[in-house]
């Protein structure tokens, strides 16, 4: 049994130690079978001592750093990681399932002919076959599939946010940096940015730690403003189902359920949510569920503590008083 090299790729150019990455790092550390297996974090971008330090504090054995200017193009970023891979081949690579992470992973999987599993919710090591097992929901999240890579030693996956917890390890870890220079030979300028403006994202609330949560489903399409103002009044965070995201009622990073985030608040009030299994999985951790729906046969009622057969709007209007 050789030692395993586990790589974790940061998708940022200056803030490497994001919460998402630290979560993946913690998972990577769990995948070590012994002290000889090594978890490395790959960073491409600006040199940031504080970020590197944080990665070591959270348990990274090594950081492989490739310095590039801020705001590099994605093609350069992919080339840097490709060059690192050609130089030293790891056994398994964990990418964040972000836009950049997904794109990089898919491109590299073709370039290296390596198996790639998308949006994993768990990764395990199978001693018998000496392979990693990637676990992810599929088929509209009605099933969990176990996937392994074949025909190639390199194995890859992308990992969703907020599946694992990050964990501080130590202040005393040695500073094991490896510098990897890369200079782009020729760059193709086939994409031109005409305009870029920051989206007016409301302050990023920490959905995971919210105590009171209002969940909206498709049925609340015309009363989002009311819902948001009532939520503010009670200090609740508004999240939504997949349907609500598709209807553009709520942002994608506020989606609850198997393909979104799982939460465990003290109280969850669901307005106009029918209660499809894949959504219920996301709120099953709630201590107390109150469901409001006009359909008296809505499946969500079976999983709730209190039920009201009525329009969400009507209840919200009363709550606003």
């Amino acid at each position, binding site marked *: 049994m050789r030692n395993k090299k586990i790589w974790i790729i940061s998708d940022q150019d200056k803030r490497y130690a994001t919460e998402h990455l630290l979560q993946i790092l913690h998972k990577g550390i769990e995948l070590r079978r012994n002290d000889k297996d090594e978890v490395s974090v790959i960073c491409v971008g600006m040199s940031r001592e504080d970020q590197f330090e944080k990665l070591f504090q959270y348990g990274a054995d090594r950081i492989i750093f490739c310095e590039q200017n801020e705001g590099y193009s994605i*093609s350069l970023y992919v080339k840097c990681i490709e060059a690192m891979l050609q130089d030293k081949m790891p056994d398994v690579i964990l990418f964040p399932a*972000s*836009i950049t992470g*997904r*794109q990089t*992973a*898919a*491109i590299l*999987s*073709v*370039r290296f*002919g390596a*198996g*790639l599993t*998308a*949006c994993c919710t768990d990764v395990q090591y199978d001693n018998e076959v000496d392979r990693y*097992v990637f676990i992810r*929901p*599929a*088929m*509209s999240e009605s*099933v*969990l*599939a*176990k*996937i*392994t890579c*074949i*025909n*190639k030693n390199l194995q890859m996956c992308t990992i969703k946010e907020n599946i694992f917890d990050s964990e501080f390890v130590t202040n005393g870890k040695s500073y094991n940096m490896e510098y990897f220079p890369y200079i782009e030979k020729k760059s193709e300028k*086939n*994409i*031109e*940015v*005409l*305009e*870029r*403006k920051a*989206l007016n994202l409301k302050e990023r609330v920490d959905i995971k730690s919210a105590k*009171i949560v209002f969940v909206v489903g498709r049925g609340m399409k015309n009363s989002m403003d009311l819902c948001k103002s009532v939520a503010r009044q009670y200090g609740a965070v508004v999240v939504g189902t997949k349907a609500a995201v*598709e209807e553009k009622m709520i942002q994608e990073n506020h989606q609850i359920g*198997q393909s979104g985030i799982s939460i465990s608040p003290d*109280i969850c*009030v669901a307005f106009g949510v029918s209660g499809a299994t894949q959504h219920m999985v996301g709120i*099953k951790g709630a*201590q*107390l569920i*109150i469901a409001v729906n006009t359909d008296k046969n809505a499946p969500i009622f*079976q*999983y*709730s*503590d*209190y*039920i*009201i*057969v*009525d329009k969400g709007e*009507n209840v919200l209007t*009363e*709550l606003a008083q």
Partner: protein
Amino acid sequence: MRIVMCIKPVKKELVYKEDDYRENLVINPYDLFALQNIIDMKKEGTEVICISMGPEAAKDTLRRCIGLGVDEVIHLHDKHFAGSDTIATSYVLKKAIEKISDVDLICCGQKTVDGETGQVSYALSEQLKMPCIAQVENITDLNMENVSIERENGECFEKLRVKLPAVISYRNCTTIYKNMNLLRLKRAKNHKIVVWDTNDLQVDKSMCGLKGSKTVVQDVNKINSIVKKEQTVLDGDIKDTASIIKNIILGKNNGVCTYEK
């Protein structure tokens, strides 16, 4: 100008709750959104071709694309394609696009509702050595040299101009078919669908299907159901029920609520 639209048929249960749909397979909603956007902006002299790799039943789905207004459909169908993962799929699609030749723009939905990997559009762009622009909201301009698109990229809104040929993938999805032109639908019924297999595409059999895949599904488990609870029905005057909820949220014990803060 030639546009290729990659579509995938998916099981209707994944898309429609009601059973008012005759076919068992429907167009993946993400692909449908992309297809409608392309058809809406199609100009004179633009040819739109739909390709789909899938089982025999995919033919009906492709017919529907004709009904929606595409010019030609090609069914990539061969037993050797079965069990393809994202790498093997993107390889077959690449071979088909090369065979079509002179393709300026390739469009996909960002993911399918069954596999939900969201990898094929990127993998395809890599196979074709073209740039891939993901998260597209819509196309604002399309000419022989460039495509201009608007997209939401994580935390910013971007307008980009991309040199053709390129792959773009749409972020949104839709589950509503626009009204189909009946005459077109009739024509679609009689349309002879082109089928390409391994020989037509001259694919290396070791690169597609299970043989060419780099991942394999070991097993699939139904996800555990969630615990059912005893519930209290709150009915009567809305004012009363709302005030009970209010008290629960505020953590007040009013005799009904057993919730401990």
